[in-house]
């Protein structure tokens, strides 16, 4: 039986979502898509130059890949809502990754504004993927609001520091009945593998691929790591224990 990733109305083989920022050239993107096998790609509306005949990033994204515009630059709910609608009006479809960031130093998302934007955009028929700090209460409100998934950060954007929020992401995996996509901070394939082993449904990776000396090879490595982590999760790893279990010095008398 195929293990497909259901998101929005789509069923996909790939559980690795990629970004488009930070590349030395947009012309690299087709190769990154092909090496990563990704079927969803996120693009900041602010960066799309619709007027340009030569430098429109959308020209580098094949049609079979689901476009996930994001609201980069939004500082509050109303800005995120406007950006989503501008993206839709510009022909980028009805998927939207909500990023509301009112802190440019750490780039941490604003959960309250994100909830407001999610409520409004779901009502307007968008498939909403909100980027959040892994906060259970925020995630629950997003679930109530009709988000299609939640995207908790592993570590601050661009930090490449790995799954630093592991315990909080685990709680979301256990408690939230939506796909959990770990977004931001995954700096190495092993970090993505760790998130998937734990039961995350997918990972979003940009900086670690775009910043690699060889982005294509790194994209392939992430794809393999995500797949390996997923298979390990499905296989059900054996329980780990701090103690050897050959003898029971305290309860042996019961036998």
């Amino acid at each position, binding site marked *: 039986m195929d293990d497909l990733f259901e998101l929005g109305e789509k069923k996909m083989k790939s559980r690795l979502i990629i970004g488009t920022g*930070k*590349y030395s050239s947009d012309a690299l993107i087709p190769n990154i898509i092909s090496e990563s096998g990704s079927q969803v790609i996120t693009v900041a509306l*602010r960066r799309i130059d619709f*007027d340009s005949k030569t430098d429109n990033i959308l020209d580098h994204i094949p049609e079979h890949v689901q476009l996930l515009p994001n609201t980069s630059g939004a500082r509050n709910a109303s800005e995120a809502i406007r950006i989503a609608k501008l993206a839709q*009006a510009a022909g980028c479809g009805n998927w939207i990754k909500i990023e509301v960031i*009112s802190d440019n130093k750490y780039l941490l998302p604003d959960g309250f504004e994100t909830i407001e934007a999610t409520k409004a955009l779901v009502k307007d028929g968008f498939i909403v993927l909100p980027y959040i700090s892994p906060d259970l209460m925020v995630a629950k409100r997003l679930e109530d609001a009709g988000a299609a998934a939640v995207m908790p950060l592993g570590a601050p954007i661009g*930090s490449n520091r790995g799954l630093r929020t592991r315990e909080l992401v685990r709680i979301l995996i256990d408690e939230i009945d939506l796909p959990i996509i770990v977004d931001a901070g995954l700096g190495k394939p092993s970090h993505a593998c760790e998130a998937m082993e734990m039961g995350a449904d997918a990972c979003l990776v940009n900086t670690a691929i*775009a*910043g690699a000396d060889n982005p294509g090879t790194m994209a392939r490595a992430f794809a393999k790591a995500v797949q390996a982590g997923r298979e390990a999760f499905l296989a059900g790893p054996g329980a780990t224990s701090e103690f050897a279990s050959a003898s029971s010095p305290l309860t042996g008398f019961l036998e």
Partner: protein
Amino acid sequence: MSFFQTCLKYDDFQSDTVLGRFGKKNVEQVLNRETLKTDDFLVLLSPAAEYYMEEMAQKAHRLTVQQFGKVIQLYTPMYLSNFCTNHCLYCGFSNKNNIARKQLSLEEVEKEAAAIAQTGLKHILILTGGARKIATPEYIKNCVNIISKYFKSICIEIYALEAEEYAELIEAGVDGITIYQETYNTKRYKELHPKGPKQDFLYRLDTPDRACKADIRSVNIGALLGLDDWRREAFLTGLHARYIQHYFPQVELSISLPRIKPHEGNFQPSHVVTDKNFVQIMLAFRLFLPRAGITISTRESAILRDNVIRLGVTKMSAGSSTKVGGWTSGNKDTGQFDISDHRTVKEIKEQIARLGYQPVFKDWQPIFEEAM
């Protein structure tokens, strides 16, 4: 709340004495730290850090790629007016200089904007001298209304305004300001600004605060390097940047490193900033403030600009003219200062790509306009 108290505290700061105490060991310690404190920043500006330029550059490069990617945002300046009531000793537009004065009519603004837009640039910085009664806020607003038809991001570098005036310009389509304090030394500032409204150090210093309160999206600050002891100026610029980041975290903050260039008049910089000093300042900024943008204008030569792309720069001007109507009038008048990188937008774009970076023309768009 103001950055003023910090400025006063460092007015008599002797960088030679204080920074001279740092040795190689201090620099090595700082280079191994993940986040830097104020004292660490001073160490990076010290003479001892000059022995560690390559190490600083490696770290700055890594941090910049991580935070901003292999990407350089391009923009160009557009001068609307060179009338000025100020007597700034270092500026070509000073009221005292006998230069041809001009202010673009709205028709000329449209022509100039259309000519610049032909290059494909989407971000523009509009500038005026400091003549509030001639290039009035109303005039600037009218210009912004025209320019916004051609550009996706409009920043202003004009005389300091009140918060309500910024709010009106933001409403019209302005999303960023550039405002240089010129020097953070109150005494030196007084000497350099003998006459005109710009004499008011505190009003100028608090300008970013007023723009931020009006909800401006981006703020670019800087000291004009060469006016005073550069190590102290760079230090205070960094502290000012951190102050803005702290109190207005929603703002996209960037720093410029303008070095005094030849211009009309006979002002000579009192403190020479060599290329090496210039690069040291840039690296120290990047290490101290990993999330701050760094802007390099065409004041600097093509060779220097090409070389610093990998060291922390995030924004560059291209195809610049510092003359009013410089794109359309064929005007031979004097500009605000001489530029050093005379390459066209296309040439700079191609060179950035050759260096393994992506030249980005568009990285913003107005949100609250009619849906496209």
